[in-house]
């Protein structure tokens, strides 16, 4: 059974005010007595702790820049915690940004293998899922065309079909509900629900509160990197909306 334990997680970004320090600045600052501070620290996530058990469907809400995506990326190991610990038990799927790692010069089929490898699929797995991905994306005719000639919809369909072709234990979603025409949207939504149903744990970030209420059984509210509330969707979303109106 999968589980996630987050203890006192903090993630710090260093914001450089002018530019990346050059050699000149570096050596100049070595000789200066008083170091000129050209950056400031920004805590995107500050001292957050919670535990997620199998069966949990967690929605994360908060205003823009509250640290929601940073938290998800930390779960997927993109960002190393500056402080605290994350323990993940189970196979986690990096579904943060579909289509990351697609190469425009490569054909659709080549991109299935390239992007699939990046997503952590083995060659054998890719051989098995390749026909299904192509059929689902409805790209039979164009699969051997470089993706730079694809329309946005075709590109999205391929990326979505590939990213959702395997069933991870832990599903991490950042505001993705695929584009495409109405027929594809309906199909994609069904596939997404199926994926969510089969996952042990689902964590999603979304600004669509109705969607969160319909998919999640637990909601976490992040505000300026801190955990403000953690509870039932109705309760937390209600308080979040109320708080927003007051403030």
């Amino acid at each position, binding site marked *: 059974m999968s589980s996630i334990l987050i203890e006192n997680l903090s993630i710090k970004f260093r914001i450089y005010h002018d530019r990346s320090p050059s050699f000149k600045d570096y050596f100049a600052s070595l000789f200066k007595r008083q170091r000129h501070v050209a950056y400031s620290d920004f805590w995107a996530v500050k001292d957050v702790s919670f535990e997620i058990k199998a069966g949990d469907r967690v929605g994360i809400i908060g205003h823009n820049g509250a640290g929601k995506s940073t938290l998800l990326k930390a779960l*997927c190991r993109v960002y190393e915690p500056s402080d605290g610990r994350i323990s993940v038990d189970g196979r986690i799927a990096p579904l943060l940004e579909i289509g990351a790692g697609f190469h425009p010069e490569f054909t659709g089929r080549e991109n299935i293998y*390239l992007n699939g490898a990046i997503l952590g699929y083995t060659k054998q797995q890719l051989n098995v899922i390749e026909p299904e991905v192509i059929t689902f994306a409805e790209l039979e005719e164009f699969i051997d065309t470089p993706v730079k000639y694809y329309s946005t919809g075709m590109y999205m369909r391929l990326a979505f079909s590939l990213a959702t072709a395997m069933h991870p234990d832990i599903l991490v979603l950042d505001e993705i509900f695929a584009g495409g025409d109405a027929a594809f949207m309906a199909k994609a939504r069904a596939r997404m629900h199926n994926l969510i149903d089969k996952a042990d744990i689902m964590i999603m970030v979304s600004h669509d509160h109705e969607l969160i209420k319909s998919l999640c059984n637990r909601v976490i509210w992040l505000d300026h990197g801190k955990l403000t509330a953690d509870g039932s969707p109705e309760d937390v979303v209600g308080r979040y909306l109320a708080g927003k109106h007051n403030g």
Partner: protein
Amino acid sequence: MKTNARSFLGELYDSRNVLSQLVSQQLILRYRRTALGYFWTLINPLLMMSVMALVFATLFKADLKTFTVFLFAGMIPWNFFSSAVTQSGASFINNEGLIKKIYLPKIIFPLSIAFALLIDSALSFLALFVIILFIGGSLSWAVLFIPIAYVILFFFALGISLITSVATVFFRDLQHIILIAMQGLFFLTPILYKNDALAGKVAWLVGLNPVVPFIELFRAPLSQASLPSIIVILQAIGFSLSAMVIGLFIFLQQEKKIVFRL
């Protein structure tokens, strides 16, 4: 430390699929939609080296045949080393989009460059082999040493590449500095001239140049039909090991900071 090393290697093994995809991406992409395709990888350095052979053989009043083999045997390891170090310098910066979105062991970016260049280099070596036979040069059993020379050179180039790839993330100026430094190093390495030909005030610089034994590893079997001396082999292995140790040390220490600095 032991478990760290094991998880590092285990992770690398797990991502062998991505690594091979990145390598083939590099090999395929450059010449996609060109009529001669991958052949350009062979033709390009060979033509370049032929021009150099012609010019410098005339300039040095050397025999064209001997000088061609002499020059090619030096250029092949040099081209591999210099391309690996320069291209790795930009490897994290060019893959910023990927690194910020999906976790991948970061060593695969410089490593895939080194592997792709190794394949290129091995193939241009085969082309050189054909040329040597064609112009009637003599080949000896010493040629069998070349694969070993490649292994030693590979780890040396990889070690230096790890240093430049990490350092460039922190100091972007390095991308340009490396290019100039490699130009300078080219002339301080006995590629166009014989090992002891550069006399006078700059001779000591050649003596300090760590690339020198690697050129010798290739040149002795190809151009002199003999095995490199044991001292040269040991020197090269020493430089290669030191480069790997320093490179891995810097890389592992900074690896987790890279994403925050892209």
